């Protein structure tokens, strides 16, 4: 049973396995560097609980939980 990015808590790290779902959002996610094999770390959730902030390839990326659900992760 694989996890998705939005399941992770702040401080947890994972490796991207696959990006699923809608092609437009998916392309955006991939363009920002979320591709298979990349290490991704959850930094925090916004004060109102959504969106979330992750660290990837040395920079901070924000995405909504619904978008993070499209990223399959293997927890490190």
């Amino acid at each position, binding site marked *: 049973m694989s996890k998705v990015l939005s399941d992770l808590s702040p401080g947890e790290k994972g490796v991207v396995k696959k*990006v699923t779902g*809608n*092609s*437009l*959002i*998916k*392309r*955006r*996610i*991939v*363009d*920002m*560097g979320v*591709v*298979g*094999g*990349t290490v991704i770390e959850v*930094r*925090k*959730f*916004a*004060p*109102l*609980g*959504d*969106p979330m*902030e992750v660290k990837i*390839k*040395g*920079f*901070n*990326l*924000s*995405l*909504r939980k619904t*978008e993070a659900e499209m990223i399959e992760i293997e927890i490190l």
Partner: protein
Amino acid sequence: MMTKKEVTVALVGNPNAGKTTIFNNITGGRQHVGNYPGVTVEKKEGFKKFKNNDFCLVDLPGTYSLTAYSLEEIVTRNFIVNDKPDVVIDIVDTSNLERNLYLTVQLLELGHPLILALNMVDVAESTGLKINDAKLAEGLGGIPVVRTVGVRKEGMDILLDTAAKVSSSQQAVSFKLDYGADVEGAITTVEPLLTSLHKQVNFSERWLALRLLGNDANIIESVGRLPNGEQIISAVNEIRLVLNDKLGEDVELFIAGQRYKHVGKIYQYAVNTSKLSSITISDKIDKLLTNRMFGLPVFFALMWMVFNLVFTVGSIPADWIDEGFALLSQYLDAVIGDGPLKSLLVDGVVGGVGSVLVFIPNILLLFLAIAILEDTGYMARAAFIMDRIMRRFGLHGKSFIPLLLGFGCSATAIMGTRTLENPRDRIITMLVTPLMSCSAKLPVYTILIGAFFDEQIAGNVLFSIYFLGIILSMIVAWIFRSTFFQGESEPFVMELPPYRMPTFKSVFIHMWERSTLYLKKAGTIILAASILMWFLTTYPNEVEYSKDYDVLTAQAEEAYTQQVSEEILYKLEIENIDQNEELAAMIDTIQQEEAKFTEDTKELAENSPEYVKLEEEKTANNQQLATEDGATYSYAARYVELTQKNEDAKETLKNEQAGEALEKSYAGQFGKAIEPVIAPLGFDWRIGISLVSGVTAKEVVISTMGTIYSIGDGNENSQGLTKSLRSDEHMNPLVAYALMVFVLIYSPCLAALAVMRRETGSWKWPIVSMVYLTTLAWIVTFIVYQGGRLLGFGS
């Protein structure tokens, strides 16, 4: 020998890579801002003479990729391909090298001469990154790599030297990324289909094949329009379907993944990350600013600070400018003879433009605050914090940025909606942006609040208007979203750039560019509107008055002369005042005393302690005179009283006449015509005229009121306007508040409407916006005014 020629250099890079700083460093003030042909993304061009070359720099929009995902990406791609710059400089944020190289690789694939500028390399190396430039160049097909620090102007000369060298050698880059057997096989199949197109398009066959396989809508459309295009497209579509199956995912995503893999290899090869510290200062700042508990309070506190900076601090220099214009109109009044020219200059030009220019300090400070928020990186956090709320109302966290810009200028804000890629999100944001109180509405509020509300509650009143706009925008957005604009919203996948100390220069340039837009408006549209309004309020000037004012004035004068001679001259047996030196001297003293009192109490309320004290002093002085010489004093006091009464009577007649002339002018006629429509809102025809003229630009509401009310009593500056508004029987705090509400909501100004037309490509949205906002303004103002009356306000 080198010959002098112009070298075109395109600056490309990710957003926040420091492109604009480098552009400003090199070109200084010499730049030209325009638009790319056909689209509305801003195009900045600047020039620089350096050694033997004339450089023309083009600052391309910041972009992460060259796929056709957004307008910025298409513009960048088309500029490089169609305009063929001699050199492309890819400016990367070195701290963020890996993701930045993704764009670099795509630029390399386009095959144009490329230079890589490792910008902010100092910051990157201070965090522990070690970059081997030679290895990096090797991985990128041998292109030159230059180190720069934009904020300290380091590396600019080397960058230009390299650009000159690269442009004179004109060596095309040969860089080929291997996408694996499946994709390469498909490319080989597609390429021969494209040879016939080679003459019509500027792209290489390999690049074109990749884009077509990657389902790039923009390229498919262009190819489809060429002869045989449609057959080629359908052939490629079949090949793509087969390829999709083989790869198990979309070709474009596979390609992107391969690119990142390749970039990752280059990065590993050229960069030593072993000493990289994982927590940066920026992360620590962020931990506080977007903290779960403190994030929202900090956000609102910052917004509150921006407000106070703009309005409280800004009002100090604004007062000086106001006084300056008052002096100018006094001077003009004194040196120019009576007639249409004087009226035009004093009432029309100085009155109109002056009451707008007064607000420059507020506007400069507002743009300063926005520039600081942008340059520090807080703007993106604001979107991050606000997304949850914005989404509830059908907006996007990114809509927050244009909405915030809306507090500066709707036209700017509408341009700012470009950051929203989804057309639905974009249109909704555009439609609600005018509900943010733009800086041009501020003069209207300031004047009305100053005239009708206590200083203690002025801030609260102002805040309530701004707040009303925000609430309305949320409601309207939600209504639009759930009726006309249903459907999926744009993803919130965006970079949160590292916090940076803004440089003075870049903040200043940002502030200046936007403020000059406002000034240009004041210089052109507003001047023209002021003159037009002056004309409409002054002509026709030969009207039939209900009374003969000249005769009435003469009668008043006659009655005065008779009273003076009966009560004073006759009794003292003199023919005129000057014959009795003591009396003349005493009259002079009393009049001077009165004049001084009027001047001293100009800004005081009649029951304030200072006023009472001055009044007591005046009475004491008069009693002193009376005890010295009782008889002369009583005659002198009577003379002063009669003279004052006479002046007042003549003044009243003059005002009545001016009022009647205005009522019968073109503007008055129009105002009267619409009066029945706006009467339920508490507005009379004069407000009607001001509102209509305010569509040219919101601040014109005030300059028109300045003109209309100044003709009544001879005051031109906003201080004068405040006084005449206060003494106007029709005006009261409730009407003033209703007027602010109406100005907040009703039709956007011409500039905003024009920008909206340009950005959406049709008049449909500007018209929708104008009609719905004016209707909404009427409804809300009606509720406020009638509700206020029911509650007993407004008397």
